[in-house]
């Protein structure tokens, strides 16, 4: 089980590492010219992306889609998401039904409990 998980992680990391994009040969990327960009370690970035992708996967997202979805985020966003993927607000709008059911059940209980 653990071995499987490790293999899985290693594969994800390698997928990211291989798809790592730099600017065309010899050119320094525009990212480097942005004022807000701090020094970044590429390895850490790859790990954060792999970690976030596997977390998405664990929450029911298709593995290939999880990888693509993480690829569309900036480094800063990936770091942020890796930290609070389970707590971050997830817009859904399905809970009103639940609230109505709970209220209805409460009314029914208090009205007919005798």
């Amino acid at each position, binding site marked *: 089980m653990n071995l499987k998980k490790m293999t899985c992680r290693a594969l994800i990391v390698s997928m990211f590492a291989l798809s790592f*994009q730099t*600017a*065309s*040969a*010899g*050119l*320094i*990327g*525009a*990212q*480097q*010219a*942005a*004022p*807000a960009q701090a020094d970044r370690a590429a390895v850490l970035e790859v790990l954060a992306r792999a970690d976030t992708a596997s977390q*998405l996967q*664990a*929450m*029911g*997202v*298709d593995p290939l*889609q999880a990888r*693509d*979805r993480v*690829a*569309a*985020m*900036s480094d*800063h*966003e990936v770091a*942020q*998401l890796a930290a609070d*993927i*389970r707590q*971050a*607000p*997830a*817009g*859904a*709008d*399905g*809970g*009103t039904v*639940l*609230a109505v059911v*709970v*209220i209805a059940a409460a009314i029914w209980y208090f009205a007919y409990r005798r």
Partner: protein
Amino acid sequence: MTGMIATGARLVRASPFAALRAFVAALAVLLAGCAQMVPQTVALRTGWPAGVPQSTTIQDVPFFPQDEYQCGPAALATVLAFSGVPVTPEPLVGQVYIPERRGSLQLEMLAAARRYGRVSYVLAPRYGDLLREVAAGNPVLVLQDVGALTTQWHYAVVNGFDYPSGTVYLRSGTEARREMPFTAFERSWMRSGYWAMVATPPDRIPATATEDAWMNAVLAMARVAPAEAVTTAFETARQRWPDNLAAAVGLANQLHARGALAQAAEVLGEARQRHPGSAILANNLAQVLSDLGRQGEALALIEEAAADPGNPFASEIRATRETILGRMKQRGSGPQ
């Protein structure tokens, strides 16, 4: 006994004033409470954003009634389709929806729009900024907490407002035209930290965008967006902020990638006049000149850049220098 009645009578006699005082006090507390509950709505009374009409509605904002739990894809499709992307909520489900969370995360909403060549921009958490974007014709995607008893996150799109009647208009869930009072909207919106985003075409900088935040939005988009959209985004940013280094470097790299070497050299040369000390510009221009076959100029430039010992891009510069020297040697020894 009598003493008590007397006391009671005195109390009754004093009561009209006491009641009035209590009423005024209660009103003051209530108003202060209201102001705390909807501070930004209250602030709008005295600080309406300059140049924004009191009433406006963006025409032709599409409407996609959401399926259960899928307000994220529906709201995202609304702003994307309005910006000219032919998309419906269905393909977006696989890009933003998380089955276990039964919802979509803010960061993924931002990320998904980039694939379609749109720049996702998070607004500053201000009512005034939201109103300015709507007035500028950009529908604003907001995150609200619409739960009655529990927290219930929900995405909706603001497409208009009418301040005299105090109404915000939204595309929300299954309602094509949901009307919310300014106050109720603020209460639902403030719980997300006033989170709001726009997704605009790359040649359309949002009304409230700042230079640094917009450049970061463009750089995030450049990772995954189609090359043409990325080029347009850098070009537009460069026109608006001619001194921006990242915009010039990004544009030149895009031009280089599509083989427009002379244009890339022109952009870098122009940027170098504004940032003469930039090692990135020197390195990239040297590379482009070398690719153009102008090895002599390229070498002179890279030697100059290599002379600075404290350079953070020393290894890139060294590599570029070696490339240039290699090409010169090849040309020198090769058959003429």
